[in-house]
């Protein structure tokens, strides 16, 4: 259960400094480390946002939000709001 902030002391330390999927630059990739928000996590997990999977920011909506995330090597695209992407923590 180490992928929730509130159940994992490891993540709780220095959370503010961690990068999230929201901080990716256009075209940049990162690897999912854990999901911060338990309720949101359920939905994200089902859609394939599993720890260890690669995410790439492939686009933003014209007004900067929502974001377009391409998942893994399977190349499918999710649309998430910036606030939701901020709950996807990335590995250093």
């Amino acid at each position, binding site marked *: *259960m180490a*992928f*929730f902030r509130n*159940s994992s002391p490891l993540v709780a330390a220095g959370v503010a400094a961690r990068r999230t999927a929201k901080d990716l630059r256009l075209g940049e990739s990162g690897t999912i480390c854990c999901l911060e928000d*338990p*309720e*949101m*996590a*359920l*939905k*994200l*997990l*089902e*859609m*394939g946002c*599993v*720890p260890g999977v690669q995410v790439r920011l*492939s*686009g933003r*909506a*014209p*007004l*900067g*939000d*929502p974001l*377009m995330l*391409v998942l*893994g*090597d*399977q*190349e*499918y*695209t*999710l*649309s*998430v*709001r910036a606030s*939701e992407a901020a709950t996807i923590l990335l590995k250093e």
Partner: protein
Amino acid sequence: MAATERTPATAESLAPPAGLAAGPQPLRIALIGNPNSGKTSLFNQLTGLNQKVGNFPGVTVDRKSGFAQLTPAQRAEIVDLPGTYSLYPKSLDEKVITDLLYDRAAGNYPDFVVVTVDANNLRRSLLLFTQLGDLGLPAVLALNMMDVAERHGIRIDLPALERELGVPIIPMNARKGIGVAALKIVMAQRLDAAPERFWEPDEALLPLVRQIRYYFDLHNDYLALHYAQQYRHIGFLSADDKAYLQELTHKYEFDATARQAAETIARYGRINDILLETVTVTRTETREPISNRIDKVLTHRIGGYLIFLSILFLLFQAIFAWAQYPMDWIDQGIAALSATIQDNFDGPLVRLLTEGVLAGLGGVLIFIPQIALLFGFLAVLEETGYMARVTFLMDKLMRPFGLSGKSVVPMISGLACAVPAIMGARTIESWKDRMITIFVTPLMSCSARIPVYTVLVALVVPDQAAWGIFNLRGVTLMGLYLLGLFSALGSAWALKIVLKARERSYFIMEFPVYQWPRWKNVGLTIYQKVQAFVMQAGKVIVAISVLLWVLATYGPGQKQETAEAQVRQQVPAQGWNEEETSRRVASARLENSYAGSFGRALEPAIRPLGYDWKIGIALLTSFAAREVFVGTISTIYSVGQDADMGTLQDKLRAEKDANGQPFFTPARAFSLLVFYVFAMQCMSTLAVTYRETKSWKWPMAQLVYMTGLAYVAALAVYQMLA
């Protein structure tokens, strides 16, 4: 979902046309899979035209089922379930699935499920599959989009995957129908439950799970776990059962969220192991997938909105310009038929046929071109995957109004009909977003308002160019639609402030890959909507037209005769010719008919809006459904008129007020138009709002708010223009 007893008799009553072999009892099969996994295509391939959609037309409906002839001897009833990513439902739409699959005792529990899986997204698709397997449901895996997977360099070792999953796998391409024959053969065998278990509850959960299993007499631990997880949302559990489960989960300190997350992660682990053995990927393409490149254009910061606006403009153009030709043919055809009948026959029954039934029927049939075009257009946008991009483009714009990007699809569908649109709002997970969407969707001008708009606008707005390129009538119509749109947004904003937010809203959504629309699916959608409209709306309209004709032709006691005698007495003094006399007689008779009496009773309330008792009757009948307006006025103005008056337009132009001036002045027509933009005059919408919100509070609020708004706005318009 009603639990129908499974007898041959019920099956026969739903049976396809005679001539198909009946054979043994039909199998009951549920079709389930991720959204965009080709489930609908497969359903259409299996059942063809032989489908039955629930009560309402719509993309997401309660229950879509159809019959398929698997072998000459074996028939199957196939239920198409809404697309879902897991057995833990987030939206109302997905709850239909758990309600069906949890209750083994129910009559409509499926014999087995066909799971459609996108070969390109095996890992995510198998999550749902393993959950179904662990519920102990026999299953067949329809491995779809094999052609695309091959092009992407994905190689799947089918025999090995079959061994690992323990179920038959049929590779297919549902769009082209490849693999459907093989699937039918496998489906015709009675299947056993997959022996494979993919995930088992932890030791720590077993005391709770076993207690639930024993109490409800369930066949399997995993199902018992789902009871613990979701008892609040399971439709068939009684209040006592729910209280029991609440107490039990509390006692065992059951943490539903953390446990479900742990299960999902564990399943992905198992699926990864399976795929490692069975799938090899050699990326052949290094270029960006075509879909992503199209997205760069269609969701461009400026171009994206311009393209969306152009598409909407094309939609309006199609509905108002192109549809006009077939509509004119229908209108003139009905008028000609009616005149021919009246020329050759006479008597009360013939007049009932021409002035009642035919006038009403014309009001129904004339909609068909517009409805077909509108639903066809929406189906193409949905099919190609463009609708998802619209949602994406609009989310940020909609949020200040308390709506989300997902509200855009119901609101655009609301241009066709609010009933399926309101049902479409089920895909919105957040309660508050969903309620606001449902509340404001009827303000979008639906296709039932089109004839009211068309008739009245053509009456008072000249057919001339505006600013060179636009048609003035087209601009007026566009204005009415915008009025509807802005009032919807404004009302949503007001409602956002009134409603207290109780949950957060989500916007996690998969982008379907762009694809050409499957014309067969588009054609089927158009066919189903038109059929539903003609059969459902048509029945009401024709019935009301006939009833109205009777009420407008006959009156209480001797009132009509007395009125007629009074008119005839004045003839010598006034020197009316024969035509004038018969017009005044008809008018007096109508005024003293039953319908006239209702209209008169209503007149004081609507006089400030510029309406007389004839429009009062039309307003009353419009509360059944707006489209009845045209049928009603055409019935009312037909009564006593010469049949060769021709089309409805001519009848309305001929209508005179007390001073002999044309009755339909711009002030009156615009007041009526504005009234129809706002007023809640659709019983089906109220019924569906009640069904979707499970409370009379919402439909009543809609009725009072919209009709109040309509009255005030129409009053203002008439007083300003008159």
